[in-house]
């Protein structure tokens, strides 16, 4: 029997695919709204949540999800304007990591748990984890579909969107919550320290390939799925960390898109 017939590999692939679809869909909005720092901040607070959950005997994934969500609410309340947002994120992030250190010192067996939260646990997902990530993924996709048009309008052309009656604060808040769920999903696959490899890099590569907003989302999803699936496959074959391979494939696609994509700087100059 080959490795692919083991339940843990299949579960990893399903959870990985769901996560990659969610991250690939959310990614273009993260890059367009310049929210890379928010992604990183949410993920690190997620780490604290996971650590706290382990401390009181709850599943780490639950703590991760709850903490991401709470942090998104806090950032949304504190940082309405763009310039305040980075300050709010930095402040909450630092406090969150402070708590994380406290939890780490209180829980003696913490080293392995901490390592897997920081760098990913995809090869250890259970059937329950798969179901939960599918449910969270479906919630994110439905929420994104509901806010899709006003979110795009508010992101690209905020003054006109506001005049047209788009509820800007509501849209920002809803997107932060969507982002929190997507970060919690991605953290499970690649770990909280590597979420940007699924939430920024595929979108960054995709927007080098086409200016068509719908195609950017499609390409971003495809790249995220390829990186995740390829990363899991390489991890299974080599027994080295999956996160390393996901990040490597992501980077390779991004560099390729930058160098040879139709929207690479060289091609733009030639066309002008």
């Amino acid at each position, binding site marked *: 029997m080959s490795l692919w017939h083991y339940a843990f590999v299949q579960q990893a692939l399903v959870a990985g695919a769901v996560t990659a679809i969610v991250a690939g869909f959310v990614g*273009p909005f993260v890059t*367009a709204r310049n929210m890379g720092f928010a992604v990183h901040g949410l993920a690190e607070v997620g780490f604290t949540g996971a650590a706290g959950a382990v401390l009181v005997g709850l599943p780490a994934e639950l703590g991760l999800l709850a903490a991401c969500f709470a942090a998104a609410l806090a950032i949304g309340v504190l940082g309405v304007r763009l310039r305040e947002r980075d300050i709010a994120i930095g402040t909450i992030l630092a406090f969150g990591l402070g708590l994380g250190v406290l939890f780490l010192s209180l829980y003696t067996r913490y080293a392995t748990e901490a390592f897997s939260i920081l760098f990913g646990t995809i090869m250890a997902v259970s059937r329950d984890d798969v179901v939960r990530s599918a449910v969270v993924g479906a919630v994110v996709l439905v929420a994104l*579909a*509901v*806010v*899709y*048009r*006003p979110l*795009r*309008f508010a992101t*690209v*052309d905020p*003054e*006109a*969107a*506001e*005049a*047209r*009656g*788009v509820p800007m604060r509501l849209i920002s808040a809803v997107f932060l919550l969507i982002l929190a769920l997507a970060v919690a999903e991605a953290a499970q696959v690649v770990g909280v320290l590597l979420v940007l490899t699924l939430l920024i890099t595929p979108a960054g590569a*995709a*927007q*080098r390939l*086409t*200016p*068509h*907003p719908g195609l*950017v989302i499609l390409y971003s999803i495809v790249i995220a799925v390829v990186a995740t699936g390829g990363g899991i496959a390489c991890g299974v074959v080599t027994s080295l960390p999956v996160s390393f391979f996901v990040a490597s494939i992501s980077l390779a696609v991004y560099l390729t898109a930058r160098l040879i994509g139709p*929207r690479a700087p060289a091609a*733009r100059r030639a066309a002008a």
Partner: protein
Amino acid sequence: MITGGPPAVRLERASLRLGGRPIWTDVSLTVAAGEFLAVIGPNGVGKTSLLRVVLGLQSLSAGTVQVGGRAPRPGNAAIGYVPQQRAFDPDLPIRGRDLVGFGLNGHRWGVTVRPEGVRKRVDGILRRLDAARYADAPVGQLSGGEQQRLRIAQALVGDPTILLCDEPLLSLDLHFQQVIVQVIADWNRSRGATVIFVTHDINPLLSAVDRILLLAGARWAAGSPDEILTSETLSRVYGLPVEVLRHRGRVLVVGAELGGHEPVLAAHEDVIG
């Protein structure tokens, strides 16, 4: 001018304070349906804020404002808005036609299920504004004049009866300034649409405007170009000796800053030289 219906915009003893500072005070003005009003005045006198009041995004500190006979509210489909120009990131994955399409359904929840109707109307307005050639290019890589035409297309695609433009001529060369004014003046005449046009340079608009609103901090004045653009009126409103020179249909103001972003003399070098 169309009579009978409610005026497009009516301000009564309207005052605006921002951060405790008075911006403009006791402005009473009725903009008739179909009128072309230019709003001029130095930087920081609240020209953009006036548009935001009409859009329902900024409330007055005193007085009343009505738009089409009712209190202003954001999202009023009768209003098209061209916000002050802001450069788009060159890598932003948005095409010209996407930007224009926002004007039709960007504010609606959900995703576009049937894009055909939107595409048809977007194509129509792009053809009308002669912007179809670059409609599929990323907006961030277009010139300022091309981006400005797309913004105007976005404001017009919903067929508004009131068009609010905030400095749409900023950073455009003289040729493009004329093109943009022509497009808006055409819309004003052919559709009977009201235009409120904030500008730092009145010259490109002289053939199109019906009236000018001059905001100058403590004082304001409204009237026809011939009434407003005189040494007497400007000296009174600014409280300084101001001289207006006319040369070959262009206006040169000496002694005061007429508009927002460039010194007036530099803006009119072609007249002097």
